[in-house]
């Protein structure tokens, strides 16, 4: 039995997206830049997808730029806004301590190149406030970039309010909405967003395709040379099938957003309630302002990678913020930012659900987590110290 509970890492491609993509691969394989009818047909399809995506996000088609995914969109938006700010002598950037590395590392690189970066601290639930943003904005601030929802702990930030603060101050505002789009309502117009990143594979599209929404009011720099694609800003033949799949997956997700969110939230809360019954466990992230599918719990006295390996032996796919699973040797910067000590951050478990998750799967997870935690604790000297205190 496989229980896939790692939808924040990636999702399965929906039948709708596959059905949309297959004819492009098989029949409409033209290059949208070609002058002949096969190419022109592909261009029409591409334009259709762009228009659909724009309308689903509250944007205009000319504000939609296709990318290879969320990471590229983040890098592009941040670098472009920073470079343009610098031209006016503005070299200050604002973000938070809990951003994805696509944002944090892009900022770090700019810092090395003479920019000043303010990373706002979050509270113990992972929230940043519009007031914090307002207080941090300076006359030389070139960009505010704050994620819509956190990928690890699921906390949803007050994006519309932050956007309003930025707009009032005349500072461009970018949001990494990779975890939010398709799961909670996102509308760039209503939420005062100037730039937004998204990735198709987080809402049942394919990997390797994403979008940068970039307001027409702002100047976008060229990302890569080599062609007139994406209004001359990003040369290279478009991933037409991937883009069409993205549009179809987004349309389906947005059409069912309330229904899916309601269903997934019930499963999420059942899972949280069951897991936090385990002795010395805690929920990470805001209990209310939270992505419908995100569960993140810490168990004291155990280490996350061992937990993941044992869950995998039972067919359960999950993730952790422990050092061993983060691809680095430190535990998750997000868990440290919300104030968890290192040793507790090592024992985190993230389960991320989707509308395909069933209640039977939740029961299966609940049935297996407690005995595994118990087994790991029974051989943990850290746990022995906790219980002997």
């Amino acid at each position: 039995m496989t229980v896939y509970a790692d939808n924040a890492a990636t999702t399965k491609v929906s039948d709708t997206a596959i059905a949309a993509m297959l004819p492009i691969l098989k029949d409409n394989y033209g290059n949208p830049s070609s002058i002949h009818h096969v190419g022109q047909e592909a261009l029409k399809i591409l334009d259709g997808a762009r228009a659909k995506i724009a309308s689903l996000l509250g944007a205009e088609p000319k504000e939609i730029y296709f990318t290879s995914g969320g990471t590229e969109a983040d890098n592009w938006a941040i670098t472009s806004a920073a470079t343009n700010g610098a031209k006016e002598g503005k070299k200050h950037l604002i973000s938070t301590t809990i951003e994805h590395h696509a944002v944090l590392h892009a900022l770090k690189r700019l810092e090395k190149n003479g920019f000043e970066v303010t990373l706002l601290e979050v509270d113990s639930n992972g929230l940043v406030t519009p007031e914090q943003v307002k207080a941090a904005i300076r006359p030389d601030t070139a960009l505010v970039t704050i994620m819509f929802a956190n990928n690890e702990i699921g906390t949803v930030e007050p994006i519309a309010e932050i956007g309003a603060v930025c707009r009032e101050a005349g500072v461009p505002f970018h949001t990494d909405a990779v975890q939010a789009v398709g799961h909670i309502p996102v509308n760039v117009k209503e939420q005062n967003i100037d730039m937004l990143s998204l990735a198709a594979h987080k809402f049942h599209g394919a990997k390797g395709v994403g979008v940068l929404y970039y307001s027409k009011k702002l100047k976008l720099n060229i990302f890569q040379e080599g062609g007139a694609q994406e209004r001359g800003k990003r040369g290279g033949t478009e991933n037409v099938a991937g883009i069409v799949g993205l549009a179809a997956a987004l349309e389906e997700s947005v059409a069912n957003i309330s229904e899916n969110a309601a269903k997934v939230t019930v499963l999420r809360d059942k899972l949280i309630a069951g897991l936090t019954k385990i002795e010395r466990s805690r929920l990470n992230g805001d209990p209310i302002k939270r992505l419908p599918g995100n569960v993140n719990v810490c168990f004291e006295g155990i280490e996350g990678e061992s937990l993941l390996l044992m869950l995998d032996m039972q067919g359960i796919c999950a993730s952790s913020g422990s050092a061993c699973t983060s691809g680095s040797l430190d535990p998750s910067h997000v868990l440290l930012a919300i104030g968890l000590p290192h040793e507790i951050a090592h024992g985190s478990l993230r389960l991320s659900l989707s509308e395909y998750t069933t209640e039977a799967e939740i029961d299966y997870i609940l049935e297996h987590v407690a005995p595994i935690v118990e087994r790991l604790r029974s051989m943990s000297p850290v746990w022995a110290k906790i219980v002997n205190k």
Partner: protein
Amino acid sequence: MAYSEKVMDHFKNPRNVGVIEDASGVAEVGNAKCGDIMKMYLKIDGNETITDVKFNTFGCGAAIATSSMATELIKGRSVADALKLTNSAVVEALEGLPPVKIHCSVLAEQAVKSAVSDYYRKRGLTPPPEAIIDEHASEHVYEAEEAALAAAKAEG
């Protein structure tokens, strides 16, 4: 990063897990901040033979597997043999470890040596030089692993 079958075997079925109440030597190495702690218990008879060994470990798959393998390699052997245990012998017996997990094997070697040191101290004796560990050795390896990761990142 993938673990060898041998590592997974020792992770799934760790040998010698537990506590020895009247141990001849006990030691705890590592720190929770880095995410690995090993506690090793030795029972040593009058002939300086390790008749029993148990461990408790907080850590990743590799930390549990290296602890388990280290106990297997020293059980029934002499104290002198146990002091010859190296981290590379543990890695070899496990049919390899991912590069970022080598520090776990260093910790396993240290747990054994520290427990032997404790055995000497408990009897009012000075431990032999080979039983004295650099407490920061696994951290140094860990830092080297981190530096290698950073270098790989900078290259990429």
